[in-house]
C-alpha cells in the first residue's frame, strides 16, 4: 500500500511541475492564440539564467526569483520586436518564427554556456527528505509542489478577480471592442507574453536540480507542454492543471505497469482525447 501511496505522490508532484512548465504556454497559446513554439526555448533560457544567477549570488532562492524576471524581459523583447509582426497573419508565420527562435537559442546557449550538462546544487534546506507517514519524499519535490500551488492560486486570482484579468479576457474575446473601450491591447499582449515567458523561465529554473541544464532541453518539454495545453482545453488554466495531473498519472502508472512504454503514455492520452473529446477537458466545443 505504501508503494501505491508513494507512486500517487510521485504523480502529483510530476503533475504540478508539468503544469508549472505548461502554464506559460497555456496562457500564450490558449488565451492569445499565439503559437509559441519558442516556449521550450524560454524554459531553457530560464534554466540557464538561474544557473548564472545561482553562481553569481550563491543563493538558489535568489536565482529562482531573478531567472523568471530576466526571462520575462526577454519575452517582452521578443514579443515587441518579432512576434508582433505576425499577429493577424495566421499560424504559419508564427510557427516559422518561433521555431526558428528555438534553433537560435540552442546555439546561443551552446556558445555562451557550453554544451556541457550543468546543475545547480541544492541548498541544504532543500536537499534532504521529508517523512510523510511511512513515505520518504525528497524535500525539493515537496517545495516544487508548494511553488506550483502558489502559482496556480496567483494566476487564477489574477485572471478572475482583478481588473487587469478582466481586461485581458475582454481583449482576447473581442479585440476591436476592447480597443474601442480604451484598453491598450498592444501593451496588454506584451504583458501577457512576458508573464508566459516568466512562467516558462520559472519552470526551467525549478527543473535544473531535477533534470539538469543542457542545450536542447527546451525541445524535450515543448511536446509535453503542447499536449497538456491541448488535452486541457485551449484557454483554460484549470484545464491545463487537470491535464497535467492526468498525463502524469498516466506516465507514473504506465511506468509501474508497462515500464517499456511509459514514455508513450503521454501520446496515448493525447490520441484518446483527439478522438473522443477534441476540445479538451475544459475547452468549449467549437462549431466547425
Amino acid at each position, binding site marked *: 500500500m*505504501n*508503494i501505491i501511496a*508513494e*507512486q500517487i505522490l*510521485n504523480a502529483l*508532484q*510530476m503533475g504540478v511541475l508539468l503544469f508549472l512548465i505548461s502554464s506559460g504556454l497555456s496562457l500564450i497559446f490558449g488565451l492569445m492564440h499565439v503559437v509559441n513554439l519558442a516556449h521550450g526555448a524560454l524554459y531553457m533560457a530560464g534554466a540557464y539564467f538561474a544557473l548564472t544567477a545561482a553562481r553569481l549570488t550563491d543563493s538558489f532562492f535568489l536565482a529562482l526569483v531573478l531567472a523568471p524576471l530576466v526571462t520575462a524581459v526577454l519575452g517582452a523583447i521578443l514579443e515587441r520586436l518579432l512576434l508582433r509582426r505576425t499577429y493577424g497573419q495566421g499560424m504559419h508565420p508564427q510557427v516559422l518564427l518561433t521555431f526558428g527562435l528555438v534553433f537560435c537559442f540552442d546555439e546561443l546557449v551552446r556558445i555562451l554556456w557550453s*554544451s*556541457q*550538462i*550543468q*546543475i545547480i*546544487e*541544492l541548498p541544504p534546506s532543500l*536537499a*534532504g*527528505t521529508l517523512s510523510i507517514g511511512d513515505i*520518504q519524499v*525528497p*524535500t*525539493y*519535490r515537496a517545495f516544487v509542489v508548494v511553488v506550483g500551488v502558489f502559482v496556480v492560486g496567483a494566476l487564477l486570482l489574477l485572471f478572475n478577480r482583478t481588473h487587469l484579468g478582466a481586461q485581458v479576457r475582454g481583449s482576447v474575446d473581442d479585440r476591436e471592442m476592447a480597443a474601442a473601450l480604451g484598453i491598450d491591447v498592444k501593451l496588454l499582449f506584451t504583458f501577457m507574453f512576458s508573464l508566459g515567458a516568466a512562467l516558462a523561465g520559472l519552470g526551467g529554473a525549478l527543473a535544473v*536540480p*531535477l*533534470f*539538469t541544464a*543542457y542545450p*536542447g*532541453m527546451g525541445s*524535450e518539454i515543448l511536446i509535453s507542454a503542447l499536449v497538456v495545453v491541448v488535452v486541457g482545453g485551449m484557454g483554460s488554466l484549470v484545464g491545463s492543471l487537470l491535464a497535467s495531473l492526468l498525463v502524469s498519472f498516466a*506516465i*507514473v502508472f504506465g*511506468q*509501474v505497469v508497462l*515500464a*517499456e*512504454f*511509459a*514514455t*508513450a503514455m503521454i501520446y496515448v492520452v493525447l490520441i484518446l482525447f483527439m478522438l473522443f473529446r477534441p476540445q479538451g477537458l475544459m475547452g468549449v466545443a467549437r462549431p466547425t
Partner: protein
Amino acid sequence: MKQTLLAINIAAAFFLPNAASAQAKDLKIAMLLPTSAVFALYGEAIMEGFNLALEEAGGQAAGRKVVLLSEDNKEDPKTSLSLVRKYVKDDNVDFVVGPIASHVVAAIRDDIHRSKTFLIVPNAGNNEVTGKTCSPYIIRTSFSNWQINYPMGLYAAETLGKSALTVGSNYDAGREMAGAFAQGFQEKGGKPPVEEWPALGTSDFAPTITNVRSKTTNLETLWFFIPGTGGPRFVNQVQQSGLRSGKTKVTGPVFMADEMFWGAMGDSALGVLGSGHYVASIDTARNNAFQLAFRKKYNKVAHVIHVQGYDTAKLILASVEAMKGNLTDKVAVREALTSVQIDSPRGRVSIDARTGNVVQNVYITEVVKKADGSMAHKVLKTYEQVRDPGQGCAL
C-alpha cells in the same frame, strides 16, 4: 600568340616543381562524426583526441600527409550512409573513422564491408559490431558493452555483496550492459539481479526509484546505465530520494560518473563506483604525460572519449607506418592493424586479430574528492587485458 603561349607552358613545365610526382599520395581519412544535436559532445571529443595525436606525429605517416574529410553526420543513419558512399566512391578515402552510436554502425556496416573500406570505430559499443556483424574491415578502438561491464559484475559479487538490482534504459545497449553485469555477477556467486527497465528518454525517475525501494530492502549494489543526460539526472534524483543512505553502493559503467558529467552531479557523484577502460586519474607516466599535452593544447582535462579518439589516430598512423604507406594489400593492412603496438594512455592496448575489438584493461574506480576540493577517480581494482569473446563473429 598560340606559339608564345605554348613556349611559356613548356618552359613552365620544366622550371616549376611538379607537385604530383615529388611527394607520396595524401592519406585520406574521413571523419564520420556529429557536430550537432545530442551526440555533438562525443563527436567533438573524438576530434580533439584525434587531432592531438596527428599533431604529435607531424600530420603525416610514412611520408604521406594526412588529409581529413569531415562533414556533420548528425549521428543519423541515412545521412551517414550517403556520406560513407560519397567518401568511398568519390573521395577514395583510405580510412573512415566513426561513428559515435551503434545504430549508425548498423546502417553503414554492409556498405563498408562490400567496399572493403577500413572503418575504425572510436566509440559505438554494441557487442554485435565485433560480434555478430563483425567484418575484416571493421576495427574498434573503444570498448564493447560486454567488455566494460562484465568485470563490474565480478567485482560486485566478490566485494560488495550477493544481491543487486539493475536499472537499465530499455534499448539494446542498456540490455547488453546490464546482461554483462548480471553474467559476471552470477559467475561469482551473486543472486540473479532484480531488473528495472525505464524507457529511453525518461526524465523523471521518481516512479523507477519508488519501484526500486519496493523491491528490495537490503540492497547492496544498485547498478545502472542510462545514456546521455539521463545518467546524471538519475544519480541526482537517487541522491535526493535518500535511497543511498544505507549501505547501497551505486555502480555502473564508468561514463555514468566521469569527468564529462561531474559538472552535472556535484557531490552526488561521490562514492559512485564505475567500471571502464580509462579515467583521467590513472597514475602512470604515460597517462600523466598525455594529460599534460592535452591540457596544454585544449586547456581542459581529457576524458575517456578523448582517449578513444587519440588512440584511433595512433592506431591508423602506426599501421600506415608499418605498411610503409602502401595500403593496397587489404589483408596485410588488417594484419598490421591487429598487430601494431599502441602506446595508449589507458595502459597496454591491442586489437584482437579475430574480432577486431580492442583488448584492454578494465578499471574499477570510485569517485572521490581530493584535498583541494576537486573530483577524481580512485582505482580500486584492475582487470587485466579483458577480451570480448566476440560472440557470433564468424571470422
